[in-house]
């Protein structure tokens, strides 16, 4: 496949609430190739989450074209976008979003309910993912008994268990102390070496410095490089 994994051309996202229009994302051009490790930095309210949600197909852009693995997703139905999320995209949130009443393993398995992973394989794949994030020793714990860093590693295991084309993380270390942040960064490094494509939004200079490439956002505008 010659197409890049992700290509944005003049992508914008405008929020409308009554008379007021918010241009959260303006004319963004961005290409992400397979195996990239890209970080997005920028001040609060600059549109980082907006961009990430558009890329993760959680939100629809209002202008421009967005191709995912060569497919123009602008025209895709809600069902088809959902299918892409289930099979091709892993998402990690700042606030983990683990289900409190499910064990670590059950939380990881949750991501395999909505795609083609066969029920018999789920347990093994969940264990394998937990192995990769070094959390297999906590497989039967409930999330309340885990530290923040451990919870985020479980959330990452849940995202990679479906074998996605890209792992998209919105402030994955935003709620973590520096030691936990270190462990997450080490994990990203390993995943990157295994060939996973990574897209990470962060406030944290140390986090962005680990990435191969950094883009900055300011007032909805995207610029290559870690601008001031």
């Amino acid at each position, binding site marked *: 496949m010659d197409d890049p994994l992700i290509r944005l051309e003049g992508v914008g996202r405008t929020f409308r609430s009554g008379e007021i229009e918010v241009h959260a994302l303006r004319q963004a051009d961005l290409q992400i190739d397979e195996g990239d490790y890209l970080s997005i930095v920028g001040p609060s309210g600059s549109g980082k989450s907006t961009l990430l949600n558009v890329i993760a197909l959680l939100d629809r852009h209002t202008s421009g074209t967005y191709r995912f693995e060569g497919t123009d997703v602008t025209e895709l139905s809600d069902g088809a976008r959902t299918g892409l999320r289930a099979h091709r995209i892993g998402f990690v*949130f700042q606030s983990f979003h683990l289900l409190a009443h499910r064990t670590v393993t059950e939380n990881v398995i949750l991501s395999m309910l909505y795609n083609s992973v066969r029920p018999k394989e789920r347990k093994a794949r969940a264990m394998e993912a937990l192995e990769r994030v070094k959390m297999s020793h906590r497989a039967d714990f409930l999330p309340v008994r885990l530290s923040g860093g451990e919870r985020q590693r479980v959330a990452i295991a849940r995202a990679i268990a479906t074998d996605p084309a890209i792992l998209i993380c919105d402030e994955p270390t935003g709620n973590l102390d520096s030691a936990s942040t270190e462990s997450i960064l080490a994990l990203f490094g390993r995943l990157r070496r295994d060939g996973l494509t990574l897209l990470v939004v962060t406030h944290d200079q140390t986090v962005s410095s680990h990435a191969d490439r950094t883009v900055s956002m300011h007032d909805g505008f995207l610029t290559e490089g870690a601008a001031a």
Partner: protein
Amino acid sequence: MTDRMRARLRPRDLLAESLAGLFTRPGRSLLTALGAVLGIASLVATLGIAETAGNQIITAFDELAATSVVVTTDQGFFGNAPQATLPWDSEERLTRLNGVTAAGTMGSVPIGGLLTRSVPIKDPLGLTEFQIPMIAASPGLYPAARGSLATGRWYDRGHSDRADRVAVLGTGAAQRLNITRVDQQPVVFVGDHSFVVLGILDEVERQPELLNALIVPEGTARDLYDYRSPDTIQIDTEVGAASLISDQAPIAVAPDDPSTVRVQAPSEPDDVRAGVEQDVNAMFLILGGVSLLVGAIGIANVTLVSVLERVGEIGLRRALGASRRHIAYQFLLESTGVGLFGGAIGASTGVLVVVGVSALRTWTPVLDPRIPLAAPLLGALTGLLAGLYPAIRASLMEPVDSLRGAA
């Protein structure tokens, strides 16, 4: 887009997720189900009690009505033909028929407004004189009307043949005349004639006008007054013989022209049953329906609360690849599960209530077996409908909004 790339959710996984949702907060799920329990229980109980009570009325009613045939000379609205007469020996003619257990003739005696009193002296103020109807009846009327005496005895054929001045008082008439005992052979006076009271009629199951009357033998009535013929024959039949007897009776009493007499036969028992049950059921059904509606509102409410509480979970699932439909199904299945559970418990409770009430009343509990089987389904349907709005609300949430809402 290949089909393999579609978001999917296996029915088993959907079921497991919904059950997990219910068991996450078992206390709340139970409380939610309580509404459906109460609704279904009252529905099943009211239906069962209605059916049981209806059945009870029918058994009491059936037996009495299905064995009664009444022959009259009444010609109805179109009766401009000369008044037919019933023969004096109708009682003998009818008791000869197979299936007749008792028969008796009766008729109102024209006493021309004479007053009845229990003492010989004429009271100038007339305070102890009463207008009491006189009915002439054959001896067989007593068993045919299923009478029972408070005291004394009924007259026999001998009294009638000799035109003896004897009488039986209906309980209402006896009260007005202040006669409670017959062992002293009390006498009542009608105009100038006196009658020895042989007995007091306590109750009749048929021909209730007897209870307020002075009842005399037919021979006596003919001798003293212008009593030409009985106008009514009451027949008591064996169970199941009534319709046959109602065909045969007119021929037996009026062989020349059976059409001159009118026969009142019991209505078909099934019609009666259906009629009574419908009346009782309609009322109880409304009651049960209202309780079920209240239960449904409860389920809808709690499901909606649960949807709003789990906005974050909804967003997460959408991000993981759940479609709007998957989200809707999950919440629908949860509310349906609550309804089904409530319906099952409610059905059992309802059946227990029916059995309990029947035991207290020494009735035979009767319940259409389809009711306890259909009740859980009705509960499930209630849950399904109640979950419709919350499920749609959940499915319409945008993944981004729900993820932000929970953060």
